[in-house]
């Protein structure tokens, strides 16, 4: 099966998923992001790599953090940024997803950053663009349904590499609602591609997808066993609508079994790092003492997220390599 995000010349055309992305491509994105971290520390935080280009932030599902970081990333690359929070309003007006895209293409878009509640929506847009001879327009998946959130996966990889250097000796535990998590899926693909020694998923059966082992992970239902000897602990956000009902009896019982506390974290390696894609539910999946503690790298993740998104946009649409 041809990877739809790699073009005929073997270059990255879109960023739709981390699945099937060659390790060299992931490595190149992470390497490209390194100098962008320091740009943020300068007085003038701009480089002209995307000058004259127009980036459309196309959010069919609400998001503040991801949209903002994409906006900052694009502006630091000197692109023009248009934010469109489409929500459900366009469908109620009868306009289809692809009609919306066609209209924005007519406004000379160069990059679409797409967030959509349905898995596969960015793939659909990318296929539509290539089927209509507009393959020069790039699509970046900013989260689609439960499927993928590749820039989040990349920033997680960047963070892990920043603190731990090598993937080949690491044990990484991903804890919580893997079933509904695009973040988890993207991170699992990235970690396995980069040769991580062991990737674990930890959660109750109701929150783990069927046959998740086929993605190359080990399954743990007991959090204490799952955390034992880990270098990296990634906590997933538990959506409030999952806290009560058929998947879980209550937030309290969830925290008791799967919440990350100082006590449980002691089972991981002494230098383990704790990550969270945000926004956090303190006292549901993570205790404040851990979130704000010395193992936490949750805020650096946000900073790195901007650099990684700059790297992705500059590789896809940039005029030259960063100086």
């Amino acid at each position, binding site marked *: *099966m041809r990877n*739809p995000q790699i073009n005929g010349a073997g270059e990255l055309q879109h960023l*739709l998923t981390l*699945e099937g992305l060659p390790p060299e491509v992931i490595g190149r994105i992470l390497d490209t992001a390194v100098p962008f971290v320091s740009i943020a520390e300068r007085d003038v935080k701009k480089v002209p790599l995307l000058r004259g280009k127009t980036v459309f932030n196309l959010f069919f599902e609400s998001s503040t953090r991801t949209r903002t970081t994409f906006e900052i990333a694009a502006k630091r690359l000197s692109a023009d940024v248009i934010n469109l929070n489409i929500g459900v309003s366009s469908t109620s007006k009868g306009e*289809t*997803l*692809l009609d919306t895209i066609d209209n924005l293409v007519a406004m000379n878009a160069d990059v679409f950053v797409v967030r*959509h509640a*349905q*898995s*596969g*929506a960015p*793939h*659909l847009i990318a*296929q*539509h663009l290539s089927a209509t001879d507009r393959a020069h327009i790039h699509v970046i998946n900013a989260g*689609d*349904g*439960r*499927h*993928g959130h590749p820039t989040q996966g990349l920033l997680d990889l960047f963070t892990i590499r920043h603190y731990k250097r090598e993937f080949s000796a690491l044990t990484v535990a991903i804890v919580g609602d893997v079933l509904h998590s*695009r973040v988890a*899926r993207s991170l699992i693909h990235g970690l396995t591609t980069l040769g991580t020694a062991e990737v674990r998923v930890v959660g109750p059966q109701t929150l783990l*997808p*069927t*046959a*998740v082992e*086929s*993605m190359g992970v080990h399954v743990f239902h007991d959090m204490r066993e799952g955390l034992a000897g880990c270098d990296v602990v990634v906590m997933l956000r538990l959506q409030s609508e999952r806290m009560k009902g058929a998947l879980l009896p209550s937030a309290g019982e969830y925290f008791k079994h799967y919440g990350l506390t100082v006590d449980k974290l002691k089972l991981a390696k002494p230098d383990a790092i704790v990550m969270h894609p945000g926004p956090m539910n303190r006292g549901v999946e993570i205790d404040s003492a851990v979130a704000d503690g010395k193992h936490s790298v949750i805020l650096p993740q946000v900073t790195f997220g901007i650099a990684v998104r700059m790297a992705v946009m500059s590789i896809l649409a940039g005029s030259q390599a960063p100086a």
Partner: protein
Amino acid sequence: MKIEIHNGRLIDPLHGIDRKTSLYVAAGKVASIDEPPAGWHPNRVIDASKLVVCPGLIDAAARLREPGFEYKATLESEMEAAIAGGVTSLACPPDTDPPLDEPGLVEMLKHRARSLNQAHVYPVGALTVGLKGEAITEMGELAEAGCIAFSHADAALADTQLLLRALQYAATFGYRVWLRPQEASLARGGVAHDGEVATRLGLPAIPSCAETIALDAIFELVRATGVRVHLARLSTHEGVSRVRMAKKAQLPVTCDVAVHHVHLCDVDIGWFNAHCHLVPPLRSTRDRAALRAGLADGTIDLICSDHSPVDDDGKQVPFAEAEPGATALELLLPLTLKWAQEERVPLLAALARVTSEPARVLGVRAGHLAQGAEADVCVFDPDGYWTVDPRSLRSQGKNTPFLGLELPGRVRYTLVGGQVVHEA
């Protein structure tokens, strides 16, 4: 009109005939085979020397989209597709808008179909009013209007007490009931098979037990009521095993598989190919292998097209939002031939799955070529390969996972009631 179909490979699965011979058609009926009737002067002779001559195909599930969904397809377009595919009889599920729950609708459909003078249309009536699962329909009136069976199509029927009552009522009068085995609550919200592919792609999933739990419930209800049930669209390995056991236990059940599920599995979804959004979902390679084995050993009685034309707008959306279904009337024969080739099933046994077997399940006198039978005939070139292409399909729906594929079996002539209604 007298037609001689000369020197073809005549295959009549019901009578076990597979030999090079001629078929003589007069006054809409099969006049004779092998030897011409006395004083034979044909109006037309069709040279079938390199062709297969078989009974017109019978499709147990083809949605013609009338009434209600004329923007997806019309009776004209889909009846044209049927004869282009060698299909001379077809059963339509009741999931039209409004559903086929009133005699007037059934009569109108039959009348419209008859006026086109093409394939025979056999409506399947709705088992409950509006397919809502709340009240049973006037089955007697519907049967009188022409319904050959009653079904709930793909609509959920969550109330088992109502299902029991409906089966008891149908059993009382000897009506056949067609049920798609799917436990409604387990299927709720799902769009793909609960396995590796759905996990990877993050698609809401339907577990295999949605089918097996429904099958177990249906078998219990069949035991309790004695009703004859046809199980529509098996999809799982476990489902095939259960039907095999039920048949061994002499339960009065038959079953079918959609032609897509004989060839495809969840891996074919690839990167969210909406053409592979089907009901039931495409399942694993293991399930597909079991369906093929079930077809070969007769556990599965027949193959149907499950023809569901969908317009482009219905498919040009993200996978889960796409309208399920595929156009398939014109692919039923080619895909059946492809299965037979791959599994080394003799042509006679393969064609039985789309002629004599569906005739038995529909309870119609068609699907064979004995003397005096209605002359519904399909004449095709088994070595004629063609590429599935939006332009090569007569159906208004161009939605099929097989676009771009080369398939065997080009229909050259279709006869309905002794008239050549299609030639190519």
